[in-house]
């Protein structure tokens, strides 16, 4: 202890202390973030997948994301985004991006499932990140839809709308409708946070709760609308538009008919 106290005014003491503080916070952060990170079942990729994926990446993605996926002025680095990110972005057609804009739009998928798997393998090989979820976590029938509904309303509905019909964000960005999105892609969106969506890590929403949310979404998708045509599930605006245009329109047609015989 004496040696330590004697050297406390050494010119390098401040640096040593700073280094120690950084190591401690960094270490705690690393431990915490691994604990938080979505630990879905990892699909195993072969060296050949990585090899093929690398070629596909160089040919289709590197012009924006850079050689080695280290990023450029036009697009972010993909080191550590994980296989789930690739599977979501390419698997829903958002990547390769059609054009620059507020956010990447979904469009017809440009690659085969095999090619997407290979690119995912390549990106996963660059650094640890969320993996593509396995089948067992995605089976909607296992989930509790009423718990999922509560979680959805608290965490998702403010952007995606209570009936998952989508909603607006600032400056041309938007939260898309989730209707028709596959279980796998819903899960991947939650763990990777594509576009403007926040990441919902396992510490935030556990894998079981994610399964419940998927179960809820699939339940309301499959049950349809109990009260007749849902008018887009957009709430009172589409209802008001409907009564003014269709409802009042029909009534006016009748008033014209009823009074047409006089004068």
């Amino acid at each position, binding site marked *: 202890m004496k040696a330590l106290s004697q050297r406390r005014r050494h010119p390098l003491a401040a640096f040593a202390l700073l280094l120690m503080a950084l190591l401690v916070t960094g270490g705690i952060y690393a431990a915490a973030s691994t604990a938080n990170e979505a630990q879905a079942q990892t699909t195993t990729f072969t060296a050949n997948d990585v090899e093929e994926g690398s070629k596909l990446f160089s040919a289709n993605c590197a012009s924006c994301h850079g050689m080695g996926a280290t990023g450029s002025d036009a697009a972010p680095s993909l080191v550590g985004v994980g296989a789930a990110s690739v599977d979501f972005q390419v698997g829903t057609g958002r990547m390769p991006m059609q054009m620059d804009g507020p956010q990447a739009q979904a469009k017809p998928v440009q690659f085969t499932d095999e090619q997407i798997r290979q690119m995912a393998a390549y990106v996963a090989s660059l650094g640890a990140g969320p993996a593509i979820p396995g089948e067992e976590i995605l089976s909607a029938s296992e989930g509790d839809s009423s718990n999922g509904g509560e979680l959805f309303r608290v965490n998702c509905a403010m952007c995606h709308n209570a009936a998952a019909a989508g909603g607006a964000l600032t400056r041309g960005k938007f939260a898309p409708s989730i209707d028709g999105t596959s279980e796998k892609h819903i899960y991947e969106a939650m763990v990777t946070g594509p576009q403007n969506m926040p990441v919902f890590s396992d510490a935030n929403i556990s894998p079981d709760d994610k399964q419940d949310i998927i179960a809820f979404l699939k339940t*309301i998708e499959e049950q349809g609308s109990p009260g007749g045509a849902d008018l887009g599930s957009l709430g009172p605006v589409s209802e008001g538009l409907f009564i003014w245009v269709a409802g009042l329109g029909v009534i006016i047609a009748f008033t014209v008919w009823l009074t047409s015989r006089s004068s």
Partner: protein
Amino acid sequence: MSSSTATHTYTPKTRVGKVTDYVDSRVGGSGIVKEFGRKIFPDHWTFMFGEVALYTFVILLISGTFLTFFYDPSMAETHYEGSYLPLRGVEMSVAYASSLDISFDIRGGLFMRQIHHWAALLFVASVAVHMLRVFFTGAFRRPREFNWVVGCVLLILSLAAGFTGYSLPDDLLSGNGLRIIDGVMKAIPVVGTYLSFFLFGGEFPGTMIIGRLYVLHILLIPAVILLMIGIHLFMVVLHKHSQFPGPGRTNTNVVGYPVGPVYAAKAGGFFFIVFGVLAAIAAAFTINPIWNYGPYDPSPVSAGTQPDWYIGWVDGALRLMPGTLGDNFDFEFMIPFPWGVNALSLNVLIPALVPAIIVFTAMFLWPWIEAWVTKDKREHHLLNRPRNAPTRTAIGVAGITFYCVMWAAASSDLIATHFLVSLNDVLYWLRFLVIFGPILAFMVSRRISLALQRKDREIALHGRETGRIVRLPHGEFIEVHEQVDDYKRYKLTAFESPEVMVPTPDENGKVGLVDKVHGRVSRFFFEDRVAPVTPKELATSHGDHHSEIAGAKDRESIASH
């Protein structure tokens, strides 16, 4: 009626006649039928929106009564055990659970909920359209000013009825609506928090509000609406119905069908048409899917949260109001009072109250404002065509534009997502339009009214352009104008057109301030004016060779040349 009982010498012969006479001699039914059965109502499709409002109100009473049998306005906590799976076991209020039960577990309940809600939307819409008809045709003028005011009160009551009903299911959407009302109330300086605590029985949301709104919704508001409808219809009978001018239709008569039997049959049939249309809509289209929104919880707010259409304009005004101007000016002032500092939150108070105050004040006072401008104290039973009162029409259109921009602002998020534009840009545009839109609308619609008047004048004087070019024997080419018939021409020419009133100086040669202002306003109203066709002009136009050859006989004479 006294005369019918005094001269009661009639002895019926049949059994039906005896029963009828027994009743009639006690309640005087024949007198009532005699008095009201021959009441004349003119026919025009725009006269039927008041009826639509009345019929939707009847439908609301019937369907609403059904709903009260099963609805429980309690905010006690429960766990849902009904048949809607995605909410099974969720903690919620008894009110929301009973609304879900009406939707899923009571036979016909969902249909009744939907017809009640659709009827409510149509009720307010038909009240609004009816008022617009009355405004644009000048039916609010003497002697109908008070009935216009009763109508305005009915509009406000229908908004109140709608809003209190919207809140009853206690779902997330309606709770968000109540939260906004709570916020607006708390923004009122000094007494705001007291008012809010008084209404909610403590801090929002509390456990009282649903029960209180229920009492207002099913007892007080419908009772006052019924009373007002009674007064409204009594005055309609008293004043007789107004009519559009036409041959034989004057300020002192009413041309149309009597209530018994024609009008009663038509009106009765129309009730069932309205009922049928609403039933078809309720059966085929979802309204307010409360099961999507979930139980009310003060933390989440779903995207696409809007009030029903008639409250939308206030929501829109709140969205349009900037939170801050620049970086520093935030519309909030801290005002020191002897008892402490109170906040004055103009960023909430201005959008929540100012547009409503402007619209409702202008609406209530309009009959007197216009009477002051025109200095017209006569009774009016003949309606104006909107184009023949260009300034009034333009002010009405400006008001509609003001309202509709705020209304559109309530769906700014849906405009952004459905037309693929930036939400921010939508708001910037609407902020511009809420100020300048009414001014532009005023100018454009006044020009259109005047242009239509000029067109009418042209047609009355020279007839309709047929597009048929005829070469006359001496080589001249003319377009044949077809004269309109006398009935049509009457409609084009029979209207009054007030002129600018120049203020007259008093005995000292001075013009008072009020007279000066009146002169200015009168000039603003009537400076741009298309004078109606005079009989003299009409007579000279007949000497005009364009019209001379337009009749059928003339056409023959051209052919024979």
